[in-house]
């Protein structure tokens, strides 16, 4: 029976090609609990595709792209990582969930493969100990602190934090709570409310919030959960104005599905929105005009496009260092890409984020608040550096 299995495996192995010189491997949640924000996996794919179609790839070499579905399942993601690193010999890997990146962080260092994480967890950000992991903006904790400062500035005092019962929710909230930064800003944490990440009904939790009557409710959750939160907040008579979310709560789905109940909701914005008047948007439009379908028209797509930009820049620089040729040795190529990535300075991102540098492995750490007004996210305030 194991022969059969081995045969099936061998068939699977032979089925994959290894022709391309530059392989970039992306895995996202194409389907799964967080699929609403998966524009950030389509973004980098489309950016590389855009390079392939308009510039003949990077330094004349077409980029071979893989977009795989990790389904937000740890074992699936671990499997995909091995496929990317081993079978596909990817020079750069872009991966999804906080859990998987944490599980893989030591192996990424061992494998010496440049890795762009979609997660902003501070636990995977450490330029010294984790020299191969890069992220695309301020950490969740930094985003939360921006909101806290905003509350303090506007004279608010009382705070309630809500988060789902997963790593993405509980982790950063614990870090911020234990760092005493809340008290440091003169604020009081009245309550922390955890809820099941797949909850469909949060009425009772919203009643709890209402009983505390806070000045601000900070939500460390993803868009699907935020939809439930704001809907049930309206149900119990809480205004969306009190709620502030992070980067994952800028989604057209929120005003679309909630209408008036979403008015006044604020979220942290790190990337310019899809459709804003910036040079990068012209590229995206040009890409679409060539008959490419853009799966998600939202800020996460912009995040992904930005990731594509910096990843491509690092690959391009590594090839330039090697005399314009793609290095034959994948290990050397990866090493060089990592070094170039860290050396990126003031990269022009076509206005998606302010010029980005990667010495800190984060690119941009600037963010601003955006508020839903008339069914649209409108920036309310300037870029603030989150550090």
């Amino acid at each position, binding site marked *: 029976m*194991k*022969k*059969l299995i081995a045969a*099936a495996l061998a068939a*699977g192995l032979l089925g994959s090609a290894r022709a391309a010189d530059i392989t970039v491997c992306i895995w996202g949640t194409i389907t799964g609990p967080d699929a609403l924000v998966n524009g950030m996996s389509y973004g980098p794919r489309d950016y590389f595709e855009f390079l392939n179609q308009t510039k003949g790839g990077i330094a004349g070499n077409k980029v071979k792209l893989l977009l795989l579905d990790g389904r937000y399942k740890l*074992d699936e993601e671990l*499997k995909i990582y091995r496929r990317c690193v081993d079978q596909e010999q990817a020079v750069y890997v872009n991966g999804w969930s906080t859990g998987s990146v*944490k*599980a893989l962080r030591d192996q990424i260092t061992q494998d010496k493969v440049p890795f762009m994480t979609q997660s902003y967890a501070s636990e995977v950000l450490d330029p010294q100990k984790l020299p191969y992991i890069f992220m695309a903006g301020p950490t969740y904790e930094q985003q939360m602190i921006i909101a806290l400062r905003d509350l303090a500035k506007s004279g608010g005092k009382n705070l309630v934090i809500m988060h789902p*019962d997963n790593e993405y929710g509980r982790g950063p909230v614990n870090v911020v709570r234990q760092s005493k930064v809340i008290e440091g800003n003169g604020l009081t944490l009245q309550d922390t409310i955890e809820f099941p990440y797949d909850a469909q009904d949060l009425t009772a939790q919203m009643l709890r919030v209402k009983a505390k009557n806070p000045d601000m409710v900070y939500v460390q959750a993803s868009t699907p959960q935020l939809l439930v939160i704001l809907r049930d907040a309206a149900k119990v008579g809480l205004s969306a104005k009190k709620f502030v979310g992070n980067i994952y709560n800028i989604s057209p789905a929120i005003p679309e599905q909630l209408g008036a109940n979403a008015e006044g909701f604020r979220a942290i914005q790190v990337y310019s929105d899809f459709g804003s008047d910036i040079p990068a948007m012209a590229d995206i439009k040009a890409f679409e005009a060539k008959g490419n379908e853009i799966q998600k028209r939202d800020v996460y797509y912009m995040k992904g496009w930005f990731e594509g930009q910096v990843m491509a820049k690092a690959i391009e620089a590594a090839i330039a260092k090697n005399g314009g040729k793609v290095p034959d040795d994948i290990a050397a190529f990866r090493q060089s890409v990592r070094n170039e990535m860290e050396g990126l300075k003031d990269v022009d991102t076509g206005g998606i984020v302010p010029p980005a540098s990667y010495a800190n492995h984060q690119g941009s750490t600037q963010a601003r608040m955006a508020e839903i007004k008339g069914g649209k996210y409108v920036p309310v305030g300037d870029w603030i550096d989150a550090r």
Partner: protein
Amino acid sequence: MSRPVLAAVLLSVLAVIGTLLLGRFGAYMMHAVAIAAIGALSLNLLTGFCGQINFAQAGLLGVGAYAAGLAGNAGWDLLALPVAGLAAVATAVLIGLPALRLRGLYFAIATLAAQFILEYLFKFAEPITHGVSGLLIKPMTVFGRPIQADQGYAIVAITLLLATFLVMHWLRRTDLGRSFLVVRENEVVAKGMGINVARTKMLAFMISGFFAGIAGGLIGFTARLAHPESFGMSLSVDYVAMIIVGGLGSMPGAVLGAGFITLLPEAIQRLGEIFHISDQLSALREMTFGLLIILFLIFEGRGLSAIGSRLVSARGWRTRQGGRAEPLELQKIKSSQGGLE
């Protein structure tokens, strides 16, 4: 050595050689199959041999992963795996004490409850499990030497699979093993024969739990993270599907089923990539999974093992093989109320 034992040893040696030839990804798949096979054999012992349906298999695997992780991180070396097994045995006893007093359907629902409660506890007991972050696990060490390569893990998993297979093969021929079958067939008859039904079921659950714990420990070591979301209800369903698709009560069937269910998503993934339908892959994968379960149950209740033996047998149709690990006829266990004949 009897023929099935010889065959199992030979196949394992082949699998180890295969693993060394395959790359890292291949080795990873191989070891995933081997681990799943240990888990499936464990479930098959309880469900296939003893007739008790267990929806808490994923929970038991989880207990094993956490226990192995804690023991491994504390430097217990190879002992970490038996520790994982024993931790799962303890859990099985805790579930079994109340649940095994119930029969059939109600036992199944009690294990369903246990599964959800275990999942909750993994998230809740932060001081032990590190809650939703999951427990980071150091690489497994064998006599002080850490295993880094996926090939190494594959060889460990295959070796343990062989050991599991042989132990169960032996167990089936003991009086205890035979009493499992009697309990499955008819509890009243078993009682009449002087078998202590409750004790027999508990022993089946404990032995099953031990191997589930070991499989869980291996999962923890290779993932390097024991994470609550990795041991959810859907994994329990996967394991039930493995023994159903493989052929309930058949040990080669359980191994085949494990391979089939583990490799199926990857096969569909690759096919999908060839035909450029990657956006619908996930739906397609789930659809195939669901359909396969249904079709197997309707048209081939004895699963892959029956199809396998039909293919192997030169005489064509052979519904029953003599002597050796034959696929067991599905039994007519009617629920006590409202069933139709």
